[in-house]
C-alpha cells in the first residue's frame, strides 16, 4: 500500500476533528466514549509513528493537494475563523471583557482587510512542510496527547462525580474540544502556509479558553478570559507578522520567511510564541489555567499547546541567531527561567509548582531558541521532548492523587508511598526525569549549558542559579512522598480506571525509555534536523559521556532491586520525637501528657521566593526586554 505523506498529514489533522464531532454525540455513555477515544487514539498514535518511516524533510505542494481543494480549505478556515470571532465578540461583550473584544476586533479586522485587499494573491506554493522537527512534535502530540485523552475518560467521570453539584456535566463538549484541539495542533506543526498555521494557532487559543472556563465558576471564567486576552495579543502579533511578511516578499510561507530571514516578522512571531508559552510578563494566564480539569493542564498547558509557542520560536532560531533581537529573546527566556524556578520553591500547591516549573522550562527552551546556534537548537528540541513526557506524567499523577486525597497541596501528600505506592513511584520517576542525572531533562540542560557557554557565557548564570533552586523544590516534594507520618494508612489506589493506569504507565515507561534511547533519538531525528537548518556542527556530548550516562541509568535502575533485601538483617526501632513515643514512631506524648501526631512541614522560603516578591520585578524586567526587542526591530526597518 502506498500511503503518501499528504495522506498521513491530512489524516492527522482531519481525523481528530471527525472524532471530535462523533464524540459530541456520545451523550452520557462512558463506555461508548471510552471505546471511541481508545480506538481513535490507537489510530492517531499509529499514524504519527508511521511518520517516522516516511521521507523527510519534504514539502507538500498545494498542487499535490489540488488547487481547488486547497482553496476550499482556505475558505473554510477563513469562515470558521470569522464565525468563531463573532462568537468571541458576542460573549466577551456580554461578559464585559472589552479588552478581549477590542483585540478580537483588531485581529479580525486586520485579517479581513488583508485577505480582501490581496484576494487571489495569497497562495502558498507549499501548503505543508514536514521535517524531523514537525515529526517530533507530531509524535509528542500523537502519543502523549492521545494518552492524556485516554486518561481523561476515567478522570472526567470521577471529576463529575466529585463536582456533581457544582459543575454541569458537559463531557461530550469537553471531548469534542479536546480532539478538535489535537487536530489543530497537528495543523500548527505541519503548516507551511502561515495563514493556515495562524488559523490553527487561533483554534488552540480558543480551545484553551473554553477548557479553562469549563467549570463555569467565576474564577474559572475570569482565568479563561485572561488566557484568551494574552493569547489574542500573541495572535495579533502573528497576524501582523503575516501582513509584514507578505508586504515584503509577497509570500505567506514559513519557508520563505526563514529563507528571507526578515527580522520584523521573525520578531513578531517570536513575540506570539512568548505569549503562547507563557513567558514573563504573560505567565499569569498559565497559572490561572490550573483551575481547569487536570487532563487539560497536562495536554494544553504543559505537554502540547504551550509547546507550540516554543516550537515557532525554535523554528525562528536560525534567523534569530547572532542578532540583537535573538539575544533579547534569550534574555526573556533566561529571566523567566530564573524567576519562575525561584517562585516554584515557595508554592505548596502541586499544580502551581508544576505550572511554574513548566514556565521555567519553556523559558529555558526560549533561551536556546534565541541563541539559535546549532548546539542550542539541539538542546531546545531535546528539552521539548523530555519535558513533554515527564511533565505530562506528573500532571496526570497529581490529577489522580487529587481525586483520592481531595487535596492538591504537597503537604497533604505525606506518606503517599504507603497509601498510593504505584502512583508515588511513577511520580518519583516523573520528578527524577525533570531534574536528575541521568534522566532526560538533565541531559538537555547539560546540552543547553554547553550551548550557552559557547555563545554567551553570561547567559549560563541564569541556568546555574535556576537549576540549583529547581533541585530544592523537586527533592523536597520527593521527600514528602517518601516520608511516613501515618504508617497504617489505607491503600487508596482502588477505583483508578484502566485507561488512567494505561496512560500513567505508558508515560512512566516513556520517561525512562526516552533516556535509554536518547542517543538514537539524537542521531536519527534531532541531529539531521539541526544540520538541515543550521550551519555548523550540532551538539556533541561525547560518545564516552553518553556511555557514562547510560551506565548511570543502569545503576539507578538497580535501585528497585534493593527492595529484595527489604527488612532483612535490620532491627526496626522507633525514632526519637522529642517526647516519649506513644507506641510508634509517629506519635508522642508531649508536655501536659497530651498525645500528638508527628507532623513534618517542608520549607517554602516564602520571604525569599514568594510570588508577591518576585513576580512583579521579573515581569517588569521581561516587559522591558520585550519592548526593547520590538523597538529595535522597528528602528531596524
Amino acid at each position, binding site marked *: 500500500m502506498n500511503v503518501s505523506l499528504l495522506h498521513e498529514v491530512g489524516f492527522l489533522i482531519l481525523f481528530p476533528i471527525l472524532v471530535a464531532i462523533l464524540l459530541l454525540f456520545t451523550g452520557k455513555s462512558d463506555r461508548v466514549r471510552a471505546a471511541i477515544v481508545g480506538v481513535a487514539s490507537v489510530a492517531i498514535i499509529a499514524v504519527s509513528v508511521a511518520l517516522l518511516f516516511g521521507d523527510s524533510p519534504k514539502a507538500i505542494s498545494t498542487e499535490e493537494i489540488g488547487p481547488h481543494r486547497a482553496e476550499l480549505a482556505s475558505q473554510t478556515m477563513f469562515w470558521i475563523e470569522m464565525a468563531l470571532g463573532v462568537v468571541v465578540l458576542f460573549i466577551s461583550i456580554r461578559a464585559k471583557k472589552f479588552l478581549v473584544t477590542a483585540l478580537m476586533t483588531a485581529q479580525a479586522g486586520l485579517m479581513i482587510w488583508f485577505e480582501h485587499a490581496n484576494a487571489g494573491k495569497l497562495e502558498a506554493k507549499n501548503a505543508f512542510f514536514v521535517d524531523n522537527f514537525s515529526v517530533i512534535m507530531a509524535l509528542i502530540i500523537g502519543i502523549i496527547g492521545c494518552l492524556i485523552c485516554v486518561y481523561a475518560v476515567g478522570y472526567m467521570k470521577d471529576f463529575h462525580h466529585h463536582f456533581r453539584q457544582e459543575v454541569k456535566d458537559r463531557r461530550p463538549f469537553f471531548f469534542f474540544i479536546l480532539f478538535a484541539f489535537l487536530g489543530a495542533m497537528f495543523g500548527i506543526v505541519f503548516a507551511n502556509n502561515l495563514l493556515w498555521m495562524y488559523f490553527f494557532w487561533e483554534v488552540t487559543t480558543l480551545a484553551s479558553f473554553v477548557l479553562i472556563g469549563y467549570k463555569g465558576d467565576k474564577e474559572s471564567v475570569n482565568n479563561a478570559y485572561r488566557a484568551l486576552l494574552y493569547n489574542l495579543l500573541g495572535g495579533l502579533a502573528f497576524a501582523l507578522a503575516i501582513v509584514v511578511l507578505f508586504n515584503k516578499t509577497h509570500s505567506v510561507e514559513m519557508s520563505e520567511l526563514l529563507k528571507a530571514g526578515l527580522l520584523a516578522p521573525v520578531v513578531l512571531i517570536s513575540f506570539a510564541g512568548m505569549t503562547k508559552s507563557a513567558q514573563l510578563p504573560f505567565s499569569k494566564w498559565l497559572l490561572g489555567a490550573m483551575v481547569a480539569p487536570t487532563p487539560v493542564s497536562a495536554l494544553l498547558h504543559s505537554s502540547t499547546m504551550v509547546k507550540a509557542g516554543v516550537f515557532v520560536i525554535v523554528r525562528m532560531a536560525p534567523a534569530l541567531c547572532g542578532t540583537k533581537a535573538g539575544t533579547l529573546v534569550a534574555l526573556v527566556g533566561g529571566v523567566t527561567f530564573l524567576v519562575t524556578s525561584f517562585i516554584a520553591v515557595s508554592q505548596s500547591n502541586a499544580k502551581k509548582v508544576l505550572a511554574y516549573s513548566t514556565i521555567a522550562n519553556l523559558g529555558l527552551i526560549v533561551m536556546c531558541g534565541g541563541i539559535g546556534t546549532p548546539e542550542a537548537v539541539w538542546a531546545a528540541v531535546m528539552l521539548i521532548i523530555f519535558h513533554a513526557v515527564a511533565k505530562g506524567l506528573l500532571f496526570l499523577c497529581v490529577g489522580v492523587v487529587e481525586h483520592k486525597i481531595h487535596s492538591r497541596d504537597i503537604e497533604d501528600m505525606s506518606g503517599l508511598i504507603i497509601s498510593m505506592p504505584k502512583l508515588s513511584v511513577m511520580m518519583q520517576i516523573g520528578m527524577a526525569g525533570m531534574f536528575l542525572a541521568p534522566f532526560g531533562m538533565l541531559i538537555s540542560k547539560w546540552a543547553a549549558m554547553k550551548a550557552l557557554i559557547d555563545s554567551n557565557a553570561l547567559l549560563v*548564570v541564569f541556568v*546555574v542559579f535556576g537549576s540549583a533552586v529547581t533541585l*530544592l523544590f523537586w527533592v523536597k516534594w520527593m*521527600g514528602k512522598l517518601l516520608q511516613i507520618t501515618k504508617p497504617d494508612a489505607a491503600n487508596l489506589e482502588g477505583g483508578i480506571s484502566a485507561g488512567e493506569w494505561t496512560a500513567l504507565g505508558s508515560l512512566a515507561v516513556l520517561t525512562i525509555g526516552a533516556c535509554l534511547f536518547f542517543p538514537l533519538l539524537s542521531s536519527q531525528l534531532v541531529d539531521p534536523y539541526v544540520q538541515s537548518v543550521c550551519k555548523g556542527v550540532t551538539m556533541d556530548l561525547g560518545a*564516552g559521556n553518553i556511555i*557514562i550516562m547510560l551506565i*548511570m541509568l543502569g545503576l*539507578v535502575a538497580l535501585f528497585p532491586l534493593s527492595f529484595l533485601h527489604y527488612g532483612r538483617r535490620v532491627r526496626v526501632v522507633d*525514632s*526519637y520525637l522529642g517526647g516519649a513515643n506513644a507506641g510508634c514512631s509517629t506519635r508522642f506524648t508531649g508536655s501536659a501528657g497530651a498525645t500528638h501526631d508527628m507532623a513534618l512541614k517542608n520549607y517554602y522560603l516564602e520571604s525569599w521566593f514568594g510570588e508577591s516578591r518576585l513576580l512583579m520585578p521579573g515581569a517588569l524586567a521581561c516587559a522591558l526586554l520585550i519592548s526593547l526587542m520590538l523597538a529595535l526591530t522597528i528602528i531596524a526597518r
Partner: protein
Amino acid sequence: MNETTVKLIALGLYLVLGPVLGCLLGGIDRKISARMQSRIGPPILQPWYDFRKLLLKENLVVRRSQNFYVFFYLLFMVFTGGLFFMGGDLLLVVFSLTLASIFMVLGAYKASSPYSFLGAERELLQIMAYEPMLLLVIVGLYMITGSFSVTDILAFDCTADTAKIHAPVILQGAGLFLGLIYILTIKLRKSPFDLSSSHHAHQELVRGLTTEFSGRAMAAIELAHWYETVLVLGLVYLFLGSCWWLAVPVVLLVFFLELVADNTCSRVKWQMAVKSSWIMAVIFGVGNVLVLQYWKPILQMFGK
C-alpha cells in the same frame, strides 16, 4: 602505556587509596582540631577504628528501606570520584555528585524522624547554596582551557606550544578558586556551614541528616565522605594541576584553612549560608566569568 591503561590505573588508585587518604585526612583533622582546642585528641587512625566498630554494630532502622538510599549514595559517590580521577567531563562529575547527594537526602527523608527531616531540608539548602558556584567554576575552567575534561584541564598549563602561551589557570581563574574554597566549607561539612550534619557536639542539631542511621549504613556514610573529601580536594588541585609540588601544598593549606574556619566560626543560620554563598558566586564566580568573556586579551597579555 596508552591512555586507557593510565585511566584504569588512576581509577584503581582512587578506589583503593581514596578512602585511605580520606580517612587519614579525617584523622589529621581531628588531631589538629583537638590541638586548636588544647586537647590531645584521638590517634590519627581513630576514623578507621570508628569505621571498623560501626561495621560490627547492629543495624537499627526506623524505616526498612532507609538504608538502600545510603547504599546508592555511596555507590554514586564512588562513581563520581571515579569519573573525576579517570579524567572525565567535569559537568558530568557535578551531575553525578548531585545524584549521590540526593540519594542521601532521600534516605534522610525516608527515615521520617523530625531530626533527620530537618537535616534533609538543610542539606538541600546547602546544595542549593554551593551548586551555582561549583557550576561556575566549571564554566570558568571551560572558558580558560576550552574543555570540560579533567585530563585536558590538567594538561593546559603544560602546553609546549609557545605560540599559544597564556596565563596559568590559577591566575585566569583566581576568582573561581576563591569561590571554590568558600563553598568547600559546605562540602567538607565544616563550621560555619555544617548545618545539616556536624561533628561538633555543641550544635543545636548535631547529626541531622544522619540521625537515624547506624551500624553498617553509618559506616557507608563515613566511607562516602572520605571519597567525597578526596574528590573535592581534587577539584582544588585542578587549578594548579601542572606542577604537583605546588599543588599538593596548596591543597593541604586549603584543607588547613578549612579546619581553622571550622574551629573559629560558629554555625550560621541557613539564610546566611545561602546568601553568602550566592554573593560569593556572583562576585567571584560571575565576576571571573565576565572577565574571561570580555577581558581575555588582557589576561593573555598578562601571561606573556
